[in-house]
């Protein structure tokens, strides 16, 4: 069981959500309110441990009086606001945004997106066979993790996790601009020549599988990756005394990757290189 610390008491505010009264604590986003009300708003770039970046624009909703749609993940609920989440206008934008994304990058390893494409009747193929795609080869330049930018939706979560929001390594940034913008380390060098400390916290937050464990990448390539056969066990890291929680993903009695629970009040899903990648000794059976 994890303990969630209680914050200071917050005032409640009232606004209208799809015609119904909603009461949420001050500071809540529209997305928080939607989730509390049991509404499922699709979102890709929103991360539970990071400040919302609202770059993907899949979670847009209609707010009475606003000229444009607003991102539910970052717009704070305000008293008296009238929010509608499922209008034709909002659904249209979500559909087109999903089509734009799916036509430009590979979303095959993005959880939930197949369902959304179906729900919103998105047809990414209608931009034609010549529609520009990223079409980049995966970058395998170290033994720990792989960067496959063909799957990258530029959600900025890895940048934020590597930068001032968690790791403070600042090894990753966005380079270039427009459609040519890419996640890159300094001088677009191999990871081994960069400031990367291999904490893997960027993999932890990546929503599409553009960043993945080398083990997962290799097993997917070999066709042996099977999440249905995996078990997850949360334990405590034994490397030092901080007490970070590790979730061991085990398939066929082998650890295949290590994640960390985001609701852990100490680490919020972050680990260091040892906790995240240093598990081979466990399965060294010689």
């Amino acid at each position, binding site marked *: 069981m994890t303990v969630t610390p209680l914050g200071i008491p917050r005032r409640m505010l009232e606004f209208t959500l799809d015609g119904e009264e909603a009461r949420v604590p001050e500071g809540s986003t529209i997305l928080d309110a939607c989730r509390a009300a049991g509404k499922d708003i699709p979102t890709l770039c929103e991360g539970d441990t990071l400040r919302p970046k*609202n770059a993907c624009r*899949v979670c847009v909703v209609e707010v009475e009086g606003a000229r444009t749609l607003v991102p539910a993940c970052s717009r704070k609920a305000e008293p008296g606001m009238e929010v509608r989440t499922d209008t034709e206008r909002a659904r249209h934008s979500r559909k087109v945004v999903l089509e734009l994304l799916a036509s430009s990058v590979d979303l095959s390893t993005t959880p939930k997106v197949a369902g959304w494409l179906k729900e919103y009747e998105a047809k990414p193929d209608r931009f034609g066979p010549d*529609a520009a795609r990223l079409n980049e080869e995966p970058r395998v330049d170290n033994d720990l993790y792989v960067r496959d930018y063909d799957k990258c939706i530029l959600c900025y979560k890895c940048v934020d996790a590597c*930068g001032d929001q968690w790791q403070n390594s600042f090894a990753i940034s966005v380079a270039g601009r427009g459609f040519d913008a890419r996640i890159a*380390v300094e001088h677009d060098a191999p990871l081994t020549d960069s400031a990367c400390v291999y904490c893997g916290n960027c993999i932890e937050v990546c929503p599409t599988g553009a960043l993945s464990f080398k083990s997962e990448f290799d097993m997917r390539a070999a066709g042996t990756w099977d999440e249905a056969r995996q078990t997850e066990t949360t334990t405590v890291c034994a490397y030092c005394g901080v007490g970070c929680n590790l979730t061991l993903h085990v398939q066929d009695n082998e650890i295949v990757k290590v994640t960390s629970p985001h609701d852990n009040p100490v680490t919020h899903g972050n680990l260091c290189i040892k906790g995240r990648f240093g598990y081979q000794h466990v399965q060294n059976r010689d």
Partner: protein
Amino acid sequence: MDLHFGDSKPTDEERAAVDALLGPPESSWEGAARDEMRAADLRWARGGREARDRRDLLLPGLHAVNDRIGWISEGALDYLCRRLTVPPAEAYGVATFYAMFSVKPRPATVLHVCTDLACAAAGAPQLCAGIEARLGPGSGVSVERSPCLGLCERAPAALAVRAGDPVRTAVSAPATVEAAVLAASSPGSAPEEPPAALAVPQAGQDGLTLLHRVGVVDPSSLDDYRAHGGYTALRRAFELGPAGVIREVTDSGLVGRGGAAFPTGRKWQATASQPDRPHYLVCNADESEPGTFKDRVLMEGDPYALVEAMTIAGYATGAHKGYLYLRGEYPRALRLLEHAITQARARGLLGDDVLGQGYAFDIEIRRGAGAYICGEETALFNSIEGYRGEPRSKPPFPVEKGLFGKPTVENNVETLVNVLPVLTMGAPAYAAIGTGRSTGPKLFCVSGSVERPGVYEVPFGATLGEVLTLAGVREGLRAVLLGGAAGGFVRADELDVPLTFEGTREAGTTLGSGVVMAFDDSVPLPRLLLRIAEFFRDESCGQCVPCRVGTVRQEEALHRIVERTGADAAGDIALLREVGRAMRDASICGLGQTAWNAVESAIDRLGAYE
């Protein structure tokens, strides 16, 4: 943070370029040689927060290297990062964001040839081909196709930049192959540009309010400026006090001239009343809208007016520091404004005690480096702060959290210059100009198929036809692009539309930044629309999906139908409408929201592709 700097070292020249901006390094922690034991090297708390607080010098630092060498090497970038305690990955992200910088080796001379709307109509493609034929790979000149250089009244235009100490620039407009090649091969001896007044066909005429000094005063002489009424508005501002100035500006009905038409007085009041300090003033001189050049002409023809207007705006809103964010493609405006600011400072019109009134105010110029998006106010803040010029999501609004997270008022050049007549003639007299809801004089940048292209000043309410008549519209007018690439087309039979905010809104179009670009029958409309789409694809920052991918899909669809009409184009037009609607609704900022406007208006009003 524990920053990692690679092994690459700067060359002596790169180091000198950075040190000329930042001063020599004080310890080996920030890149000094370790040849002797320095006291500073033994301290622990050097650098750190103090150095990180200079992050906003990153863009000037990149300029320093690019100006001296012509491109930014790994060693130079790492050294700059060391000096400013900026992570190299972030600095790399910033350096690759701007079109005028290169992180790959290139020749010291770059010739930017404008291929945007007015220049394209005036033969830019042939010009480019001719220049490239003359300046082959071995010529030591890199020829780059450029978005609008803001020289539309003298189209086609080219700007040569030769790196060195000092950097040299030369403008060739209207450019011929010979003139452009000469500018690139010897920028120091290229013929001087014609004075800014030549861009103002009305120069010297009676009845001008905003342009009355352009062509009349010497733009480099403070005395001449004062002899022509300069600094009377500032004196009046000190008589009125900050609240009084805001009252006058509010009563005048002045609204922002950058395109959004927000009431200036309300913006100033909102900033002035913020308890958080300090307050900042930002002048948006990043005029990059294709077809717009009025701010350049104002700055080149009457630079002290902008310095005075910024001082008044700072005084009214409680700011002691004003940033003038000037687009990187305006070298002459940069020289004149630097000179004007230095002179004003020397004469006590800027500095610790402006006019002996106990008010401290100074202006710092920041150069952009080729990014249309930095005209968006929050992207501009990021750019000044040394981050990628990506827009921030609003709220919070700049009046609350703007530059460096502090209350900030941002106005464009034309808006600020309007404050001078507001104060000298008084709010009621100013408000009497124009119409009820659009008060004052307005500048229009007229270009394209007219006899006398240039900046025209008319009171709000003049019709589009009247402005075109002033400029001498040529036979065979087919369409007018109103408001720039983010604006919309109107037909040749709609010239009676009144040029006011409400009048253009009723007519289903926009005044935008004051662009009036005339196109005659000879201009192939689908090519023009394709150029607009290319522009937005190139200039999208890439932060949000609707704009990053939507602008690409828009351009692809327009490519497919460039030679097609009717039923053959219908499917792609339907697709364009769907994507355009999502871009307008779901993009973070105005760039994505308006990227479909001009194309949509061409389809709906001009019947393009029918």
